[in-house]
């Protein structure tokens, strides 16, 4: 057994982390498990694909690979625009479905509606793009050895860097800005936040925008490193939930830590028992944490 699984695990963990942050924020601020979060990931990837195609058609040279990466500026620009669009999709879904249920006060029905919405969105993607996998680029990348028996591709290195940057940005947002403080306040005590002058509706909107755009980033990463298909986000849902619960609901550092644990465990399992058992790892970790410490590693004990 080599240490390759550590690199693979970190990359998977980074990916899962971007999605898990959105899940944990939605969970703690809106108080429900959003089963449609996987579809934000898939939508983000497809939106980027479409936009990259359009940008590549308009701007000659934008499809040229940047350095040793497999993509050009078209994809990068498309990704940024898609992040905004995915954030808007999340807002739209909240406006159409979740907000009304929230006003009625039926938390678990919101979960149910999110499940229905996720099914509809997934099917819509399948209808528009068929279930055939597709890719951002057909370029083959060569994995370079970086020591300790580990090999990584340029794409993987770049994406690890981008994720780290995003995570730092989110951390700074949450700890150093008023918006971030407001989010933490609403997550802890919504009625106290209200009387402290916080517009909770605005915080909710920010949460959706943030969660949606991070999910899009995860989708672009996943599409780049593996492939793009309608079920890509849905298949990530269990690891996302496992990571968020493992780290402690509401804790963004927890979600990242949980994601890394899930990612590395999955990669180790792939090396030891085979890739087909990968999905079971998340379930085992989830069951384990619920049995031992349901509030998660960074969560407060009740």
């Amino acid at each position, binding site marked *: 057994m080599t240490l390759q699984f550590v690199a693979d695990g970190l990359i998977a963990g980074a990916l899962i982390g971007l999605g898990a942050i959105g899940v944990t924020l939605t969970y703690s601020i809106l108080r429900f498990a959003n089963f449609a979060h996987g579809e934000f990931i898939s939508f983000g990837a497809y939106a980027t694909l479409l936009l990259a195609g359009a940008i590549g058609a308009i701007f000659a040279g934008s499809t040229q690979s940047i350095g040793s990466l497999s993509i050009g500026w078209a994809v990068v620009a498309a990704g940024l625009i898609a992040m905004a669009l995915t954030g808007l999709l999340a807002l739209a879904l909240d406006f159409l479905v979740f907000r009304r249920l929230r006003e009625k006060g039926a938390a678990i029905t919101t979960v149910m509606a999110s499940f229905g919405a996720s099914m509809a969105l997934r099917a819509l993607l399948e209808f528009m793009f068929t279930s055939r996998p597709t890719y951002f680029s057909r370029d083959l990348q060569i994995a370079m050895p970086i020591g300790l028996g580990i090999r990584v591709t340029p794409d993987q290195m770049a994406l690890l860097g981008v994720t780290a940057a995003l995570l730092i940005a989110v951390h700074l947002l949450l700890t150093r800005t*008023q918006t971030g*403080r407001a989010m933490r306040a609403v997550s*802890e*005590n919504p009625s106290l936040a209200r009387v402290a*002058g916080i*517009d909770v509706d605005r915080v909710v909107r920010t949460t959706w925008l943030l969660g949606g755009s991070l999910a899009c980033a995860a989708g672009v990463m996943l599409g780049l490193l593996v492939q793009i298909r309608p079920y890509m986000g849905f298949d990530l849902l269990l690891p996302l939930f496992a990571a968020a619960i493992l780290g402690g609901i509401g804790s963004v550092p927890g979600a990242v830590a949980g994601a890394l644990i899930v990612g590395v465990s999955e990669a180790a399992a792939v090396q030891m028992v085979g890739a087909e058992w990968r999905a079971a790892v998340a379930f085992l970790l989830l069951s384990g944490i619920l049995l031992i410490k349901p509030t998660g590693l960074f969560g407060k004990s009740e």
Partner: protein
Amino acid sequence: MNDIRRAILVVDNLVAGYEPGLPIVNGASLSLGAAEIVVILGPNGAGKSTLIKAVAGLIPIAGGKVILAGKDITRLPAHQIARNGLAFTPQTENVFAGMTVDDNLRLASGILAVSQRRARIEEMYALFPDLARQRRLLAGRLSGGQRQMLAIGRALLVGPSVLALDEPSAGLSPRLVDVVFSRLNDIRASGVAIVLVEQNARAALAIADRAYIMSEGRIAHEGAAPGLATDPAVAALYLGGLKAGTPRGAAS
């Protein structure tokens, strides 16, 4: 007794409750003058807490009006009421335990203009030196008395015209209760009107100008604070409401 026209806060025939059709406050009226301390007393279940929460915007109002400095705030959401100058501290969970003392204050400062924020926060620290020493501490680790100070400081930060408190003495030792209440006195002296709900009638009546006694969702009695401590009508109201249980610190 203040002239209603000069009152900073007027509650007129308020009907409010958690569920529509099941009002807990059933036609309560009160007024608060610009530099007054008014206390709302009454037995458990009278609706005192519900009343003050409804004024703060946390509980749906089914009927009646709330007027703050001449502006009708009845239909406003809680965060707008806060921005209009009514600061509320709840009885339990009145600070963000998971955030530092400094973050609690910085959060509240969001209402103010950016240039004013740091200055006002430092003013609060000057007012509550204990808190200044523990800026970086998670609010959940503060002692009960310090937490109450932080809750009040958080509310005062924005320079409200009215400070509304729900049982500020809850969970505090008698010595701390005296400290908190003398602070409230200072705050009133600085020009902030205060309305508080209290079980500890003795401490509250010592600093209040006027008191209202609530019973079964309505105001049953009102009067100048000094006389109420020995008023037999008050005792009757309290004793009448004592069938279910004894309020702490009832007038004796």
